[in-house]
């Protein structure tokens, strides 16, 4: 990833890849679900640029995290909203940064508590490596090679900016 690269350009690339993938898979009428908070921002843009009519879904995976017994409740939990039936739908799940894969594991579990989707594809703005679970994205905006002590953060929603930080 180029430091000065526009996030809009990355999202445009994702739209091209997603459109191709949806067509080649023969998926009709897919619905987009973003993971709070950054994933929802990206999902909003994908939905607009892909001209998807279905309202956007959002997931807050706080109740499905695997580290509750270590870190406890997240103080800011927004209700998940899935304003359509999950059953038999093709779902495009969107997050900002794919890292360990644990967030995606939680999101998949939560989605299945709402119904049985026909399929789920994963699209992420950034794949930074460091996976701890066997999870891969179908569409990745940019691959970024980060060291374990480095951290990439999306700020937004207006404007969307990416920043690489080092944890002390």
């Amino acid at each position, binding site marked *: 990833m180029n430091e000065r690269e526009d996030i809009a350009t990355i999202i445009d690339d994702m739209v091209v890849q997603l459109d191709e993938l949806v067509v080649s898979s023969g998926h009709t009428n897919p619905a987009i679900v973003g993971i709070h908070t950054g994933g929802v921002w990206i999902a909003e843009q994908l939905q607009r640029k892909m001209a998807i009519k279905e309202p956007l879904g959002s997931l807050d995976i706080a109740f*499905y995290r695997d580290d509750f017994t270590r870190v406890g*409740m997240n103080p800011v939990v927004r*209700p*998940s909203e899935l304003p359509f039936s999950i059953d038999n739908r093709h779902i495009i799940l969107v997050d900002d940064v794919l890292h360990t894969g644990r967030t995606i594991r939680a999101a998949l579990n*939560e989605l299945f*508590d*709402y119904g049985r989707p026909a399929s789920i594809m994963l699209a992420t703005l950034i794949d930074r490596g460091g996976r701890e679970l066997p999870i891969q994205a179908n569409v990745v905006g940019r691959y970024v090679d980060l060291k374990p002590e480095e951290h990439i953060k999306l700020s937004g929603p207006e404007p969307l900016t990416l920043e690489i930080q080092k944890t002390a």
Partner: protein
Amino acid sequence: MSRDNLQIDGNGQLRHFLSISGLNRQLLIDILDTAESFAGVTEQTVKKVPLLRGKTIVNLFFEASTRTRTTFELAAKRLSADVLNINITQSSATKGETLLDTLRNLEAMHVDMFIVRHADSGAAHFIAQNIAPHVSIINAGDGRHSHPTQAMLDMFTIRRVKGPDFGRLRVAIVGDIMHSRVARSQIHALNLLNTGEVRIVAPKTLIPAHAEALGTHVFHDLREGIKDVDVIIMLRLQHERMQGALLPSEHEYFELFGLTESKLAYASPDVTVMHPGPINRGVEMDSEVADGSRSVILEQVTHGIAVRMAVMSMAMSPKEAPVE
């Protein structure tokens, strides 16, 4: 250490939930916000989240209750905890010693949380003081003292109907304030949330002596007391109070303090009527009011689940949470 500080750990997080007093405004808002996100769980096909999977919660009820116990049980199950209901009714003479014995036995079964209802004020505090450090206690009603989850579900209901600004609200609590743990907790919660005006309305015999000190305005006439109020909370009248010569008769009580459609005309036109249940129809209020469009009595019951899920999961959060 004061008794109420038992509730909060060093990081200001909820450890036990024993009473509203001793908590701060932000914590109450955190509970309401967390409950708001749990309310969505009932819309899922699978009405469950895995948050407390593998935890064991015991409903320890020394006093009968259907609604409170059931909603606590449902809340625990929707959090994926395992729930055990234990109903203990016993004479008060042997209670102190037996209570500790019971606790030690349950502790030995590796229980993570007790939901306690007891006829004695302070029972939940007593248990919290004597329990192993990893166990959380939730007060589900103790004597005349406190019923904090009921108060929080009432606050949740008010916020849902009237919006988050309690400052513009007039709230009247009507009925047996003196013997009501619900009223005590409600008054504390309404005050912490900066409610514009809190009124209590009851015959002189059912108002505690220090009522004004609670930050309330006291009324002995129902029509005056509910004039222009936005929310009316009716309290249950315990039948046994009649025997104590505190009240003349149910009929006369209804004439003076029972809520009817015609008396409701004194309140604000969009007044909301609440009652913690179970209702004595024709004593605290007319069926017409209880089942009418202004009543949110059944919504209160529904909200009780989300609020109890919030309190349970917050109290079960690890006590020394590392910063991410």
